[in-house]
């Protein structure tokens, strides 16, 4: 459950930073434009990184280099900020992402069991960015939706009040949300579990 402290995302060394030529020219141009919109002020770095991440889905090394140059900041500082904040991704994300809230209210209402169930169901590990190739599952510490606990965020959409106490209903709901392993054998077990669940109701 704990993200390993000792293993920051693989840091690019200066030598293997790909030149911006590897990035789509249009995205490079848009990055320059948005930096100019912030008046090239170095205190806008976090805001710029948010927008660059929106552009690429993550922060590619070449884009970090471009941001550093155009904000006139050392690359080390840009990389230091990008790696400090949890919401910045330094690797390409999986196609689908799910976040399980482990805030206190969700924890009291079974968020931990929900996370464990999703790990089994999707065949992946919590907070492993690579996930199962299609899905990645991460934890969030509180979304402020405590009145709806326990909650999940599936591809950016908040799913409230998950029925953790009713495994059959939970499985059916998770299935309907598309939260199934892409591995054929796992999908088979899940389908059976879903089938018996809905049949029992």
């Amino acid at each position, binding site marked *: 459950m704990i993200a390993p402290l000792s293993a920051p995302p693989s840091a690019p060394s200066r030598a293997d930073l790909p030149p911006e030529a590897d990035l789509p020219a249009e995205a490079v141009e848009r990055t320059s434009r948005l930096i100019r919109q912030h008046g090239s002020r170095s205190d806008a770095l976090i805001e710029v990184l948010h927008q660059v991440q929106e552009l690429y889905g993550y922060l590619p090394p070449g884009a970090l280099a471009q941001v550093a140059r155009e904000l006139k900041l050392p690359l080390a500082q840009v990389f230091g900020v990008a790696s400090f904040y949890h919401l910045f991704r330094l690797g390409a994300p999986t196609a689908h992402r799910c976040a399980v809230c482990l805030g*206190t209210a969700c924890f009291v209402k079974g968020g931990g069991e929900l996370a464990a169930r999703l790990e089994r169901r999707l065949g992946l590990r919590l907070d492993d960015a690579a996930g199962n190739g299609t899905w990645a599952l991460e934890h969030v510490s509180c979304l402020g939706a405590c009145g709806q606990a326990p909650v999940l965020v599936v591809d950016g959409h908040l799913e409230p009040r998950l029925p953790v106490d009713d495994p059959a209903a939970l499985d059916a709901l998770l299935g309907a949300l598309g939260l199934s392993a892409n591995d054929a054998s796992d999908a088979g077990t899940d389908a059976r579990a879903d089938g018996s669940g809905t049949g029992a109701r």
Partner: protein
Amino acid sequence: MQLRCCGASGCRSAGAEALRTALLSARDQLGGAAEAVSIKSVGCLRLCGRGPLVALDRPEPSGAEPACRTELYAELRPEQAADLLARATGRGDALAAQRLDSDHPFFALQKSVVLEGCGVVDPESIDDALSHGTYAQLRRVLLDVSPEQVREQVKRSGLRGRGGAGYPTGLKWDTVALQPPGPRYVVCNADEGDPGAFMDRSVLESDPHRLIEGLAIAAYAVGADQGFVYVRAEYPLAVERLRLALRQARSKGLLGAGIAGSGFHLRLEVRVGAGAYVCGEETALLASIQGQRGTPRPRPPFPAQAGLWGAPTLINNVETLASIPVILRQGGDWYAAIGTEGSKGTKVFALSGAVQRTGLVEVPMGTTLRTVVQTIGGGVPGGEGPDGGVKAVQTGGPSGGCIPAHLLDTPVDYESLRALGSMMGSGGLVVMGDSTSMPEVARHFMRFSVNESCGKCVPCRAGTVQLAQMLDRFVERRASLVDLERLEELCRMVGATSLCGLGQAAPNPVLSTLRYFRQEYQAACRDPVQCEPLDACLLKEGTR
């Protein structure tokens, strides 16, 4: 007739948008009397656990008192839109079962001061906010009241910082205002990161103009002409509404140069965090606003002396600033008459966890925990006994502690909670029932602190990891009595030697559960027979 639809995050996730769309199209279809029903999007209507909520304001027959009657409906589905409109126009009452009793303690015991406009004003309309009196106090103080007089009222009110530490607000304002001449900044700390807290989010989403007014008054009182609102990125709706509100305020001349015809200028910007809990700590927050890693630095100098770009900087929490317009309208003495000797005014709580009614609760300071958790919240669903099945109440998030059921009669104020080894914190109250194991709760918070430690100082970076591993041994029932001693020793060390509040307070959840639920730790030892006293080791059933 008016339908006020909650459009805050809680109700939205429960389908408030679909409901509102259905109401609008049902009104078009029905025509006739339904045309006269106005459908308004508002902020939080409090009982978040039963959303989506809609309030119906119905005028009473002429001469009756009160002239308008409000009914609140819960858990509405889009297909019930026509029924709701029928009720609004006085035909039918198909939704009686979903109507909430407005005399219920959940509503009746609340006192709305900070949340006065929450659920009443449309958060996306400055005209609506203006018609409810927002910005009236800003205009008044800019034209008629000196900064010293504003600070005097705030001091008289006895308002203390609502972010958790409870520093007297007026004193902080004086400190900033009395620094040597030069630039000053104001900052609103809206980086509400405590798990289980959603008060600030509700204010931002429900009544952003009140916050802007409070922040502008603060800027005037301390002589700042630039400010920032630092909001966590996990609150996209709050960010969106705040940005919209700032644009609207600028276009109305309520921000910018020469506000409301006075000589006062103020530029306000939103800064969005990027998911770092430690940025709620004020020096880390300042670093983050300047585009750096959010690591705290030692104090002094305090931000009031040297903050953003070295200039004196006033940092206040959302709820603190949202209290300011009311204090200036009603006077500091009016506010000071609410609450207790040392803790004045009201406090907003986010009530959640194993409790029947979850949502947003604003009560006078000094209200007992029992009133909040049992009378207002209804205790644990299906819970029995004098404490309503409540085992403990967690306050203050990862910096606070668990207060056991037998202390539920404690009044909620800064000093009482601190005396119990917890703290007010920002206002999250998470209720725990009998099935919650306290060593697991402690480990839950310690893992949170491990994740959120910024890594700058060793006691916090390494100590929290060690504490989490020791707690693993208790949760997995392979601890020894020596571990219990070591656990306490390490807690004291991390608390005493960490650089900032995060590390200093990280052991609190462990220490408070050790204080009140020690038998659970003893029973988790590999060989519970060694424990003293033996009978304390017998664990209630259901506790894992």
